[in-house]
């Protein structure tokens, strides 16, 4: 058919100049905000008047890092999905997904201040301190008990020895003139007593075994929750998981992006086959990594609470909003004069449909999580929603999450025409990203006040005054740095995989 585009005409690809000045402006703005953030953080530390605010800034930084982590991790997900399903439509946007995903390692670096053993870590994840306290208490109690045990044993040995001595004397006396049967009986009785004494003497209380047992018993008594979760929630396992997750996610996107870039240069179809196969194997790795990351970073903000839908809830938001981010990125690139011929309204329509699908998916998961907990009404599960139905947060949830995050974009995206108009679709995408801001904010920030002011009793605060501005400052800081690395990755190679075997299909896609 006439008018079809030929992939050979596009084999040279399109090179992006890397954003030029904008890239450096973003980096400077981001670094400037980050420096300001940590100056404030250090300045407010160590004073009693600003202690809560100081610790509250840890939540600000976590919020900012998680927000952009979801976007980047979503980029990894779309790359994986695209390769694993052997999709043809989106070859021309796949490089944007890869570039977005490749920012993940830098975000792990930005997360280091939180991970480093110190005030930030302990302010966010109370279980570190709670575990330390519980263990300390358990060890003291165990030592005390062990001392008592030793004392007891000593007493037992002494009384057993006395008894043995008495029996020995009796035996000496009775043996005179005893019949052979009586002699055998008396000797056996003496031997039995001797064995009892030796057994008591052989009891080893210096060994760690009994101490460990006693400590566990005390640990369980002091904090049953942390004791039951001790195999998962201990610093060693936590740091191990952090290292493994950051390596896994980085490795996945690095491998796929490297092959994709190599296929640009050589056009060898073997890379495309490798990517497809590897992506299928990487998907479970990705799913496990992301699930455990959000368990460790977000669910553990309150270690007594749990939700089995937590991983998929955060995943739904990540996939939705990285698609929104990709739509905006694509439109900005086209505004700047790139990808004009390669991308058609059909691609917008397809991406808009995915945006709609994940808007519904997010709502489905978010509602199911709420619904199951609300209906079952079990104390240890409802805690999360109780905190978030208190004071300001109730309005926030209804206004931003129920109406803003679901009903408005759902209604707008149902319109076919809206999905084919970049300006309108971008409007929806910007709105969705703002709603994601509210979603992540609602996940992390309500923990801050109650966690940091619990010890004040009646003076407990749900909102820490002033910390809202540090939340914004942290967001700006991470946004700038994130933007810099996205632009840098975009400038590294052609904006679309220019020699992929399915480029023809993608250029001429109709739906």
């Amino acid at each position, binding site marked *: *058919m006439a008018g079809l585009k030929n992939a050979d005409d596009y084999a040279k690809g399109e090179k992006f100049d890397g954003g030029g000045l904008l890239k450096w402006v973003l980096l400077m703005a981001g670094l400037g905000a980050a420096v300001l953030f940590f100056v404030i953080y250090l300045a407010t530390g160590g004073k009693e008047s600003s202690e809560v605010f100081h610790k509250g800034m840890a939540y600000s930084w976590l919020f900012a890092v998680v927000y952009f982590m979801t976007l980047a991790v979503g980029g990894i997900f779309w790359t994986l999905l695209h390769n694993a399903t052997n999709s043809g439509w989106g070859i021309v946007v796949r490089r944007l997904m890869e570039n977005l995903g490749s920012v993940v390692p830098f975000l792990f670096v930005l997360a280091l201040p939180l991970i480093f053993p110190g005030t930030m870590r302990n302010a966010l994840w109370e279980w570190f301190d709670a575990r330390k306290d519980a263990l300390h208490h358990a060890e003291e109690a165990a030592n005390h008990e062990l001392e008592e045990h030793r004392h007891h044993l000593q007493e037992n040995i002494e009384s057993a020895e006395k008894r043995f001595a008495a029996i020995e004397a009796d035996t000496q006396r009775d043996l005179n003139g005893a019949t052979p049967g009586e002699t055998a009986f008396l000797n056996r009785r003496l031997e039995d007593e001797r064995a009892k004494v030796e057994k008591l003497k052989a009891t080893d209380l210096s060994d760690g075994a009994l101490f460990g047992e006693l400590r566990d018993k005390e640990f369980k008594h002091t904090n049953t929750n942390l004791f039951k979760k001790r195999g998962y929630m201990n610093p060693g396992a936590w740091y191990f998981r952090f290292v493994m997750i950051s390596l896994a996610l980085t490795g996945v996107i690095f491998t796929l992006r490297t092959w994709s870039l190599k296929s640009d240069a050589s056009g060898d179809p073997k890379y495309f086959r490798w990517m497809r196969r590897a992506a299928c194997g990487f998907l479970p790795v990705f799913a496990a990594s992301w699930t455990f990351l959000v368990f460790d970073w977000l669910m553990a903000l309150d270690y007594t609470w749990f939700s089995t839908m937590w991983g998929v809830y955060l995943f739904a938001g990540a996939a939705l909003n990285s698609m929104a981010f990709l739509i905006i990125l694509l439109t900005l690139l086209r505004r700047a004069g790139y990808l004009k011929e390669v991308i058609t309204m059909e691609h917008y329509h397809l991406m808009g449909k995915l945006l709609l699908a994940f808007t519904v998916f997010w709502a489905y998961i978010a*509602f199911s999580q*709420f619904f199951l907990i609300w*209906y079952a*009404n079990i104390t240890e599960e409802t805690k999360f929603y109780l905190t978030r139905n208190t004071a300001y947060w109730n309005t926030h949830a209804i206004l931003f999450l129920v109406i803003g995050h679901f009903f408005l974009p759902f209604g707008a995206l149902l319109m076919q025409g809206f999905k084919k108009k970049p300006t309108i679709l971008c409007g929806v995408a910007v709105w969705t990203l703002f709603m994601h801001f509210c979603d992540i904010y609602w996940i992390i920030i309500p923990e801050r006040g109650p966690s940091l002011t619990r010890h004040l009793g009646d003076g407990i605060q749900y909102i820490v005054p002033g910390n809202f501005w540090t939340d914004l400052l942290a967001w700006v800081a991470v946004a700038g740095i994130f933007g810099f690395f996205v632009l840098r990755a975009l400038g590294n190679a052609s904006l679309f995989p220019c020699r992929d075997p399915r480029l023809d299909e993608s250029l001429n896609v*109709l739906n």
Partner: protein
Amino acid sequence: MSATANSTKQPYAYVAEFESASDLYHAAEKVRDAGFRKWDVHTPYPVHGMDHAMGMKKSWLSAIVLGGGLTGFLTAFVLEFFTQVKLYPTVVQNKPTNLFTVPAFFPVMFELTILFSAFATLFGLLIVLLLPRWNHPLFESELFSKFSDDGFILVIESRDPKFRVEKTRELLESAGAKSVELLEA
């Protein structure tokens, strides 16, 4: 006898066969540009972009489905709200019986939205297509029956105001038809 019977027959449509999907696509563009309205194409498999080549407008079906979905949503809400909140307030685990009971209603609202949308799609489609019907004049054509095997068929009906026995045949032939049949019914 047969001559008189034949004389009552009127031209029903032109059935034209094309060599390939590509030929049919371009022929469709020509027929579209000539301003025909009562015509259709039949292919063994879906041809991407054919709706565009035929100049088809967006279908009304989506509006019917939206209507069905909203009806289902409201039916479920009204049913649950009036029975469980107004007529006979049902207290479960001390949960409120007012508008905030709505999370408990959601599963039913969700299901009925889907059920009514599906019904609207099915019955709406049948109405839009004027189905079911017992027979269709096109089934008389040998040429037409090839569409379910290897034929790329274009049909222009005689009720189209632009239909002219001679001119329309010329149009189809100039568009590259392999064979053209005037179907009478």
